[in-house]
């Protein structure tokens, strides 16, 4: 785990720390926070360092899977059946 961190660039560590703050904490007006997870670099998924942020994004991804009923857009923005985000 610690070894993985050594390979992260400063910019990537900075992004991880920023995500951990802005996605998990701060003022919330109940029922008003909605985010759309798109194209975020999932470099931290395997690291388990900032699990809070990963869980937050996983929750959102799970909700999106349910809402889109198995349809997703590929990189070109074209819809296709099935697959996982």
């Amino acid at each position, binding site marked *: 785990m610690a070894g993985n961190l050594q390979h992260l660039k400063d910019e990537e560590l900075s992004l991880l720390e920023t995500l951990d703050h802005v996605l998990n904490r701060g003022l919330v007006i109940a029922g008003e926070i909605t985010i759309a*997870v798109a194209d975020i670099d999932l470099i931290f998924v395997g690291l388990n360092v900032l699990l809070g942020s990963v869980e937050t994004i996983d929750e959102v991804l799970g909700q999106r899977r349910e809402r889109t009923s198995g349809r997703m857009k590929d990189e070109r923005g074209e819809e296709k059946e099935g697959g996982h985000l």
Partner: protein
Amino acid sequence: MNLYAYCLSDEATPDMIERAAGVEGAQARMVEHESIKIIVSDFAGERARVTRENIFAHESVIHKILARTTPLPFRFGMVISAARLESYVTTHGQALLAQLSRVCNAVEMGVKIIWDAESLKRAAAESTDGGRIKDAHEIVGPGAAFLEAKRRKVAGDEALRNQAGELARWLQQRLSEAVRESSVRVCPTEGMALAAAHLVERARLDQYRALLSAARDERADLRFLTSGAWPPYSFSELIS
């Protein structure tokens, strides 16, 4: 047209966010209700996309305010109508001013301590065996093997939590002179002993950094991830 809300302040002025590009590239501006200033930008959609650019834009706008005064930051993604935002500030004005007073002249500093959890758990499990691991022939049958594995896991997890708690108390003691408030999560993940957020007065930042540096030197066996100064995300209580 909705608004994207970044933060609240009682001292911000419009010049602090001159030419500040926010989420989706929109120009940040300030609105005011009940003597509370809210930093916002126009937002055409219903949901904020979690992209690298938007994340850093959100943080960049708030940091422009933080450079001069301490705001209460909104969590990323606060898309709201102007009417709803005004209602929120009007309804909770006194509580918001109290929170602004709580974080006045302070910033948030972050400390995460990373350790080798597997080694610690193994050592803890072995210590409950009197210093030895049971040989394979001593574990008879799948049931006994399952129970032995379960016992070792429970012993390891408990030892990990206890050690993390001790670490949290140790760190708090080392930094207490420079810290106004702390928010600590013990064992937020197995690989992380603790994740701490410290509210530190701006005038004490040098003292805080010196105390933290000394603490790191004391525990060279641990990995410290430090960050800050942040807006006080961990000290902005949720108000519904």
